[in-house]
């Protein structure tokens, strides 16, 4: 009468049972903060288009305690997204060069070089605007 034993698994809390599930969920939850930050940036651009006073109110909120806390948490999640995205890239898009498969570590390293170049370039571009 008794069937095979099925371990009860929580539908909402299953990911708390193993560290690698937690890391998976942190990667997925990064999208909540990243998506929210996109909406914040869009709001900021909209306020910027409305005029100096509207934008000043937005900037005050962004640089207030809640705004800074959210921004810094999102920065950590964004960095984690970059780390996890680069790791899966060689698995999602294996590369063959001169008949040989390019090692995953080389592809990941090349992505980090690209990341550094883009980051420095954007930083210089922004700070060169007579800031």
């Amino acid at each position: 009468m008794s069937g095979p034993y099925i371990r009860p698994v929580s539908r909402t809390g299953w990911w708390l049972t193993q560290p690698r599930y937690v890391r998976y969920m942190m990667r997925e939850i990064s999208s909540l903060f990243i998506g929210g930050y996109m909406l914040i940036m869009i709001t900021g651009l909209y306020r910027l288009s409305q005029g100096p006073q509207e934008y000043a109110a937005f900037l005050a909120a962004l640089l207030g305690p809640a705004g800074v806390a959210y921004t810094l948490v999102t920065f950590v999640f964004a960095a984690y997204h970059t780390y996890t995205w680069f790791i899966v890239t060689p698995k999602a898009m294996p590369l063959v060069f001169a008949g040989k498969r390019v090692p995953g570590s080389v592809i990941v390293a090349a992505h980090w070089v690209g990341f550094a170049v883009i980051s420095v370039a954007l930083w210089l571009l922004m700070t060169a605007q007579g800031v």
Partner: protein
Amino acid sequence: MARSHKPIVWGLFAAGGTVAAFVLPVLILLSGAGVALGLLPASSLEYENLRSLLTHPLTRLVLFGVLFLILWHAAHRLRITAHDLGIRADTLVATVFYAIAGLGSVLLAIALMALA
């Protein structure tokens, strides 16, 4: 064969995830975290500075592409995450997240066009 909108959504997810991986950390530093951490002067986010930064149409076009793709990436991943957290009303979840991303995209386009 039945047509599916999956390739479009997946394409936006992959493109947005790649763009986010390369530019989002520095974008967050430049758009708020840098000032909060004292790496950039507060003047870098002032009205006049950003207006002059965004005067070139190409800058606004690139910014639109970047924010649009990351927004849709996040919306798609949130849809999947809702499923992972036991929420099985996928049609409702997808409608809500894609609607927010759609409205955000429209607002973004309006704002960037008004910044001309």
